């Protein structure tokens, strides 16, 4: 199975790879997946005035999983928290031309976005 050009590009030149300190103000962290399933994604957002000013990821998984999370960080930057919640896995599938067998990678990326947003919200509410 050949990978789409976009998947290869994200895999070779991952965007926003890295980590923020979890406890830092305005940072939301989502970790989804499980090592025994072969995919774990960590997605982090940094929010200022309800806008995502930065995003980072680290992923254990196949090329499509890495590309999905890399793409997600690109899309998250500049979006409001509300807009970010509207990113759908199907958008990722379309952008990266993922084959059916790789759709779960995009689902995982959507879950990671939701988890990061929820974590951010929880931290904001507890203040």
């Amino acid at each position, binding site marked *: *199975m050949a*990978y789409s050009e976009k998947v*290869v590009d994200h*895999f070779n030149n*991952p965007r926003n*790879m890295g*980590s923020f300190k979890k406890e830092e103000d305005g940072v939301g962290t989502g*970790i*989804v*997946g*499980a*090592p*025994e*399933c*072969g*995919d*774990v*994604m*960590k997605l982090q957002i940094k929010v200022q005035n309800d806008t995502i000013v930065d995003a980072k990821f*680290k*992923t*254990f*998984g*196949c*090329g499509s*999983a*890495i590309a999905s999370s890399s793409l997600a960080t690109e899309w998250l930057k500049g979006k409001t928290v509300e807009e970010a919640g509207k990113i759908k896995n199907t958008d990722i599938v379309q952008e990266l031309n993922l084959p059916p*067998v790789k759709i*779960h990678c995009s*689902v*995982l990326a959507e*879950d990671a976005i939701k*988890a990061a947003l929820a974590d951010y919200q929880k931290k904001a509410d507890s203040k």
Partner: protein
Amino acid sequence: MKFPIYLDNHATTPMDPRVLEAMLPYFTEKFGNAASRNHAFGWEAEEGVETARKQIAKLIHADAKEIVFTSGATESNNLALKGVVEMYHEKGDHIITSSTEHRAVLDTAKTLETKRGVKVTYLPVDKFGMVNPEDVRNAITDKTILISIMFANNEIGTINPIKEIGKIAKEKGILFHCDATQGVGKVPINVQEMGIDLMSFSAHKIYGPKGIGALYVRKKNPRVRIAAQMDGGGHERGMRSGTLPVPLIVGFGKACELCEQEMAADAARLSVMRDRLHATITKALEEVYLNGHPTERLPHNLNISFAYVEGESLLMGCKEIALSSGSACTSATLEPSYVLRALGVGAELAHSSIRFGLGRFTLDEEVDYAAKKIIETVTKLREMSPLYEMAKEGIDLKTVQWAAH
């Protein structure tokens, strides 16, 4: 160095040019049907087939009459299991095999269970992937008609104690089938000394053509009988009908002859190369785990897991090298290798496994390039891995509550 580099010789091997040369006349001027008894074209083809039969038999210390040609090892495995069950069903209905067999044996056994009510014992293997002969002995009942254990595993290269298992089978008077697809032509195999009654193997794993294989069927002590699984002209002593593919058979014979002559030198060279590959990788990277047996393994096989890195992404990062992974990211079930799981390798390490298969045409510089590229890619992917980060922070990954999906 030519790219891509081929290090997947367990999947298939390139044909040796000497094999091709031997085959070519049989596509054109020597095109006869080996079953044509009345003219020179047939005699010429038959002679080619019989020479090949002798070359093949010699490699495994069998008699030429004991070689039955098939389309490949999958058919040989099917023919052995189904043919024995059908022929000996009045004697019993129990088969013993192991959990790390190739799918061609496991799925055939499953079919026999569901369609013919055969009872199958799937023996476990130890942490190196080896079957314990005593487990074979203990699984035998008065209904057991066949023991089917592979010679060497296609993923991890572990070589089973075939001679011991053969001895037990003889003692108990039970037929012993061995799927030796990965072993024939790579390490010495002697069906007499090892007590093998039926043995499957194929040409394309030993630098021969695809589409031709053989089932060794013992002729005496005991005389093994199998029921044909295909009706037709009664070729191959009635066990496998169908016009013989003469060019493929001639190539198979030549490939066996070359293995007989060069196997020892190939094995010696490849095991040194393999050990150097392993040493270079383990020297440069932490948390690299060998899968399979440290010594009782095929000389050209190396299977290792790189903790915190998913196998398919590793292959993607080394796309100029043809390798195989136990990760099942592309499979519909998302289950990693059942072979590694049977060894007790954790699912996360099974997803992280890579199989290297060296071969007759593998060069030193190719292996050195592969080692360098693997080390670079693993390092890069670990930087990208949240698991590696967590492990570095001192978090025990086994205690983490994962959101399974």
